[in-house]
């Protein structure tokens, strides 16, 4: 039986390990859509890491970082998706 403090530390370790395949796919992805999907997944994993760390440290400040990262990661993914679809951004 693990306590709650150990449980969120375990979740933090799992989320950090989850970014490793994303980094591999960003570096060695054969095509550009592979890299973009991996970058989006890594952004979401980072948002979860910030949220878990804010909970673990009992601090509200890192939740601002998590929400900003979520919004900016979404905007970046939409921009690159339109570039891949139409060939131009604006």
């Amino acid at each position, binding site marked *: 039986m693990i306590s709650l403090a150990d449980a969120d530390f375990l979740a933090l370790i799992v989320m950090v390990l989850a970014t490793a395949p994303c980094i591999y796919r960003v570096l060695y992805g054969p095509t550009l859509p592979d890299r973009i999907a991996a970058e989006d997944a890594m952004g979401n994993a980072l948002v979860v890491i910030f949220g878990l760390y804010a909970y673990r440290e009992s601090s509200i400040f890192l939740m601002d970082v998590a929400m900003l990262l979520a*919004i*900016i990661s979404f905007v970046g993914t939409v*921009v690159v998706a339109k570039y891949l679809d139409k060939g131009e951004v604006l």
Partner: protein
Amino acid sequence: MTTVITKTVAKICLMVDMLYSIDLLLIGGNRPGGGFIGGVLCACGIGLIYVAYGYEDIKKIWNPDWHSWFGYGLLFASITALSPLLAGHNYFRSAFDIRPIELMGYEVGELELVSSMFFDLGVYFVVVGGLLFIVTKVGTDKVKDPEGGQ
């Protein structure tokens, strides 16, 4: 123009962006936040609308001069930074005051008024104007030859 899913999500995301951008602008100073990151978030929301609906269509409805926003924001921030010299204080000196909020004779809270808020507002307009000026100028630059030749 993009699909209807992108347009709908962009509208929802624009509202969240603007609210959170104004929130970050107002809480700056005591907590993480401030004019710069609020401006970045505002530029992100407007840029997302430009991407989702197309720059040419948005330009018919609302087309401000983003470089003027940059210039007026810089002027506003500079005037705010220089104004303590008139009162004999140091450059960039900020003043603050705490006023009680009264509602029907009862004191319900207190409002902290700081003069560095105006400097943050100038930085906000500088960031919004600068980022969106770059986005619109670089985004509408048509490439003559996609192979890279002249």
